[in-house]
């Protein structure tokens, strides 16, 4: 059974801090790992990673994948209150081409 585990489950920081969110996975026939941000609405896409060691970056957010150790990290530097959200990690693989398996999510709270 495919499995995605995120840590920590929740995190409270102050503005300006740097945070690292973790995602480990066990999936047959790995194809991709995706990060989503969810505020009080539908998840919105952040990154998709398919190759090890290549950092994806968007502003203060960056992510990298390690396919040997089966994990990914999402870094957020100089956090702002607008970064407060649930961050979801999802992995594509297994027998169904389009299916994603989601982790439980990390709840990030950024205080001013």
């Amino acid at each position, binding site marked *: 059974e495919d499995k995605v585990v*995120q840590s920590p489950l929740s995190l409270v920081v102050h503005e300006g801090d740097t945070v690292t969110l973790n995602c480990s996975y066990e999936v047959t026939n790995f*194809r*991709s790992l*995706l990060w989503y941000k969810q505020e009080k*609405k*539908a*998840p*919105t*896409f952040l990154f*998709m990673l398919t190759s090890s060691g290549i950092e994806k970056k968007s502003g203060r957010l960056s992510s990298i994948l390690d396919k040997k150790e089966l994990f990914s990290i999402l870094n957020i530097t100089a956090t702002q209150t607008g970064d407060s959200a649930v961050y*979801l990690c*999802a992995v*594509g693989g297994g027998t*169904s*081409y*389009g*299916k*994603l*398996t*989601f*982790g*439980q*999510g990390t709840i990030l709270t950024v205080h001013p």
Partner: protein
Amino acid sequence: DAGITQSPRYKITETGRQVTLMCHQTWSHSYMFWYRQDLGHGLRLIYYSAAADITDKGEVPDGYVVSRSKTENFPLTLESATRSQTSVYFCASSDPGQGGSYEQYFGPGTRLTVT
């Protein structure tokens, strides 16, 4: 409207009633998905569909029925609602074939309360 829409956005129903949640997408994406989201569980896949008339069970299919007669629509029916089906339901679509992306695009969600 372009994109992926869900209706209703909010629904309150009684135990034992049949409820249908609607999902419509305008991108002609091949794949469509239904998830439920509960505190502490992230997104759990209920059913998905790779194309019209092709559906398959996800992680938590019991108590739910789906159909997909047209590419753009993917309704989810709770045949006899139970309190444990109180949740937020998200529909999503993607088009991963032929070099496409695995990125799933989510609808706005339906908040269902079963009393």
